[in-house]
């Protein structure tokens, strides 16, 4: 079974409005992480690989982003992914989900897999080279929840969002050394869940809570460092950022819905003041 996980690198340093108010600046000590939901998606893929090793299961990770994204791809390989794919872009700032999805899908169509190795082909494949594609439900920073469903649509495969459980036990249908159909549970609001069966290939967007992502292991990191990431430079591709139909005009702080009186002074002053406010309101005796 061939699995692909789409991961996004996000900044974990402090984020502020930039001078022009048109976008944000990220703290000087730039530190990065894999967006949390994507980490859940990757963990789920690795769990599947561990369970279905007999089916020659392999996990690749793909990330679209600037040079620094390579760091997150390596981390993904440190967690247990076999191959890394990096679509290198030079955009700064906001990128719409539709542009990212187009780039991911374009790249997927160029990939051919044989066994555990991947290769990029000159011409596009019409078939999806993966049995299962996983993404996070949304990115932690831009929160668009678009890339997964859009990639699926570009590839013409079914998509299920907000998946909280993947079940292979019941009705597991292994034919030809591959899994034919899987059963998943997706989450709706307020604790409601929906059971769905889907034929592979399919794309699932993963909701947090499905698993606890592992830390990269030393042996995997060493292996990852030796392995080359398959890179593709977007500059020569037609899907460059000038194609983005979405234009960011500015960034602003949301309006206050309540007074949000700020308490001043030392920690002790603030604690005393809160105590008094709550007493006055009869909330504390």
């Amino acid at each position: 079974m061939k699995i692909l996980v789409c991961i996004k690198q996000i900044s974990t340093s402090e984020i502020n409005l930039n001078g022009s108010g048109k976008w944000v600046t990220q703290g000087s000590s730039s530190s990065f992480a894999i967006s949390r939901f994507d980490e859940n998606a990757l963990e789920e893929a690795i769990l599947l690989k561990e369970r279905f090793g007999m089916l020659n299961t392999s996990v690749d990770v793909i990330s679209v982003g600037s040079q620094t994204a390579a760091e997150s791809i390596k981390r993904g390989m440190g967690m247990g992914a076999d191959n890394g794919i990096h679509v290198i872009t030079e955009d700064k700032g906001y990128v719409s989900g539709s542009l990212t999805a187009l780039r991911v899908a374009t790249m997927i169509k160029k990939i051919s897999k044989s066994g555990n190795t991947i290769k990029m082909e000159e011409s596009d494949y019409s078939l999806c080279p993966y049995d299962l594609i996983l993404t996070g439900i949304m990115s932690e920073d831009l929160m668009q929840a678009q890339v997964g469903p859009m990639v699926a649509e570009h590839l013409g495969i079914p998509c299920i969002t907000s998946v909280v459980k993947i079940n292979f036990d019941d009705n597991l249908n292994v034919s030809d050394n591959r899994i034919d159909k899987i059963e998943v549970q997706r989450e709706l609001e307020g604790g409601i869940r929906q059971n769905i069966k889907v034929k592979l290939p399919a794309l699932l967007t993963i909701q947090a809570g499905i698993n606890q992502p592992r830390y990269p292991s030393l042996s995997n990191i060493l292996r990852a460092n030796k392995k080359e990431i398959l890179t593709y430079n977007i500059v020569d591709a037609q899907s460059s950022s000038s194609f983005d139909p979405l234009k960011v005009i500015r960034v602003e702080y949301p309006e206050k819905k309540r007074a949000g009186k700020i308490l001043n002074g030392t920690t002790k002053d603030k604690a005393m003041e809160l105590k008094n406010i709550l007493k006055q309101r009869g909330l504390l005796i």
Partner: protein
Amino acid sequence: MNNKTILVIAEYLDGKLNPITDELIACAIEIKKIFDLKAKDISEVNVLYEIKVIHFKGINSLESEKYKSFLFPIIREINPSFILMGHTSQGIDIASGLAVRIGCNCITNINKIIYSQPENIDGSEGSKSNILFSRSVFKGKFNTIVGVENLETIILLTIQSGSFYIKDCCKEYNNIISNEECYLSNVDDSIISLIEYGDIVYSCTTNSKLNEAKVIVACGRGIGDKENIEYIKKMAACFTGSAVAGSRPLIDMGWLPYEQQVGITGAIVSPELYLAVGISGSSQHIAGMKDSKFIVSVNKDPNAAIFNFSDISIVEDCLSFIEEFIYSKQA
């Protein structure tokens, strides 16, 4: 007269209309107002925007692949300028894929519609239209204001719940809103045969403890460690009729049971006092607690979104503050 359509897709669950539908209509009215205003500005009255609400019958809207295939030809035929859906679990499952199929613009999780003079926007990079859309980013800390290059292409929007309200003044618009029912005809699409939609499972045991609590002390990732829930429990013990709750990541990490999760996928609460400790204030959490009578938040980031929804804002390291609060209470 040239008519354009703002299409609202009514959302149903179990045959019942979801309240998000009212918000979609309210949003549609705001969009219409902007174009009415523009028409007045440039005395261009030959474009009339009408609002059409479609209710799909005979199809379970949770069967998203089927729903997409069903919607697609209908949208083609209506050829609306705008399509509005909820940024709900249903909307997320349907909207973005549908947008690719239609080949239209897609902007998700909108919380505000903004009227703008095109000359305010710098010409080359900016949008040349009068309408801009605000959407929440970075855990609700900022809104990005986005526009599209031109309004020739359909724009599909998903709307963040809790952002738009039908106000009394909107009643005047009642006569320009048309409701239409659509029945499922045979849709021919090979993708449908690949997916089988099963049962709905109601896993939620409604949590009486959170609903009955007068005071809720809720903690988020800002508390740093599982052990620090002890601090939260001690804080809660300062109040009578109190309960401990958490943001979703704490439940996902197994620090607290699901019954104690507040938010759109957890419990919706409105206690006398909601004390949010180390919670950033993303929209999914806010949706679960914004109607609390009094809200106090402790966060080390002075710009955390939670402060926009708080009566009292305390910028502090949460554990030091709790220690000091417990101490001052005993004093």
